[in-house]
């Protein structure tokens, strides 16, 4: 027989038994187990979110205790994720909690995100936020964002049903002087707790498909003045493309994807295949020309523009005169997120030799 733990939320007509079923099946990844991460985790666990991942490489410090209520004096020096799991598992043993005692980086991001359906951003640095955003874009899952500065908080949901992304709101800038984390600038414990609870609320709305998600809306709160404001923002396709490109580049590097080679004997079979995108990257004055219809002549200066609408998993075959430029160009395209790039290893000249 089902326990009574969730009766009060099941009573809400917007939730009901079917809603509780959605909550139980949900897979949510909480990145950061600090000021935001603690309340997010506590609220998701209490609501019965069935599968929760928690990522953080940090250990408990005494200065955390005024705002991170999962930890006590005895926990100082212990891994946050291990302590957090032990505490919330007592609160609700039915929840499956996976912990990742590392920081979220290019190297582990895809492996950790795996099949989680929602990312919750509880980090305190913007570099990780861009990474999280870009992985969320590649995986096509939403990211629930919150962040604080002294007495002010921001909250939003990115990449929800193809809505705007973190980059659409804050395009990445090389200048990171603004990147002060709350260790440096001071924080009153109530603020991250308040924002974390609101993040959990957004997560539950997404899982349940009820209410209005903060999609394309930046919620602002000032704890000193109690001033609340919501700013509307929109999808910026250029910024979204940058995010997808970076996310795919992280993935390609992880998969150790390199430029494939095509031997001269196979070249015409490959070029005849209309599924392949074959590109002659030589300058227009270079001879000899190749005639087959399936060959696109795109000198380097025009290549980026030519590829802008091409899917990142499209098989691309590049060739040049001797194979050097096509290899370098292929490596560049992989950095740009293309995952299936090949080149004619010794260039056009290898074809000519064969014909002699």
């Amino acid at each position, binding site marked *: 027989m089902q326990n009574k733990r969730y009766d009060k939320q099941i009573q809400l007509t917007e939730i009901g038994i079917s809603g509780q079923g959605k909550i139980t099946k949900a897979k949510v990844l909480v990145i950061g187990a600090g000021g935001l991460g603690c309340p997010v985790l506590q609220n998701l666990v209490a609501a019965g979110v069935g599968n929760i991942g928690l990522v953080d490489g940090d250990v408990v410090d005494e200065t955390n205790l005024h705002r991170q209520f999962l930890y006590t004096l005895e926990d100082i020096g212990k891994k946050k994720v291990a302590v957090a799991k032990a505490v919330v598992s007592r609160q609700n043993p039915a929840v499956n909690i996976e912990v990742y005692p590392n920081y979220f980086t290019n190297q582990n991001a895809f492996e950790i995100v795996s099949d989680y359906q929602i990312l919750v951003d509880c980090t305190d640095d913007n570099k990780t936020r861009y990474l999280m955003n870009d992985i969320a874009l590649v995986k096509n899952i939403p990211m629930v964002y919150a962040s604080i500065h002294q007495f002010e908080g*921001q909250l939003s949901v990115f990449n929800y049903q193809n809505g705007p992304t973190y980059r659409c709101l804050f395009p990445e800038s090389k*200048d990171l002087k603004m990147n002060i984390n709350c260790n440096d600038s001071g924080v009153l414990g109530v603020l991250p707790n308040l924002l974390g609870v609101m993040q959990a609320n957004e997560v539950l709305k997404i899982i349940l498909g009820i209410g209005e998600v903060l999609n394309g809306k930046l919620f602002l709160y000032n704890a000193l003045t109690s001033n609340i*404001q919501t700013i509307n923002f929109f999808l910026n396709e250029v910024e979204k493309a940058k995010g997808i490109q970076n996310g795919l580049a992280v993935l390609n590097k992880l998969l150790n994807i390199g430029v494939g080679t095509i031997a001269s004997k196979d070249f015409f079979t490959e070029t005849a295949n209309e599924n392949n995108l074959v590109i002659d990257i030589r300058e227009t004055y270079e001879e000899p020309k190749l005639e087959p219809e399936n060959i696109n002549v795109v000198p380097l200066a025009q290549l980026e523009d030519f590829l802008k609408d091409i899917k990142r998993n499209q098989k691309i075959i590049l060739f040049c005169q001797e194979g050097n430029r096509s290899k370098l160009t292929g490596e560049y395209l992989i950095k740009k997120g293309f995952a299936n790039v090949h080149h004619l290893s010794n260039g056009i000249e290898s074809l000519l030799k064969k014909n002699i």
Partner: protein
Amino acid sequence: MAIKCPIKYYGIISDIVDMDADLAEFTGDIPTLNDLRVTLEDAFPDMKEVNYLFAVNQTLISDLTLELKDNDEIALLPAFSGG
């Protein structure tokens, strides 16, 4: 005719200008958002070091050539990083 626009400053921008809110007054030509940006960054050069965005009447504006109207509510918003 003078144009007056209330401005709200958020996060590190409000630390730099040392206020939460202000009223901007423009005389002469119709001001653009970029005119406001230049005026503020001249007065507070530290703002140039910060990645921030403008909202006008609660909507993010990326085109700074937008002409301001009397009573437009302007907000300067940097990304926060704490958590």
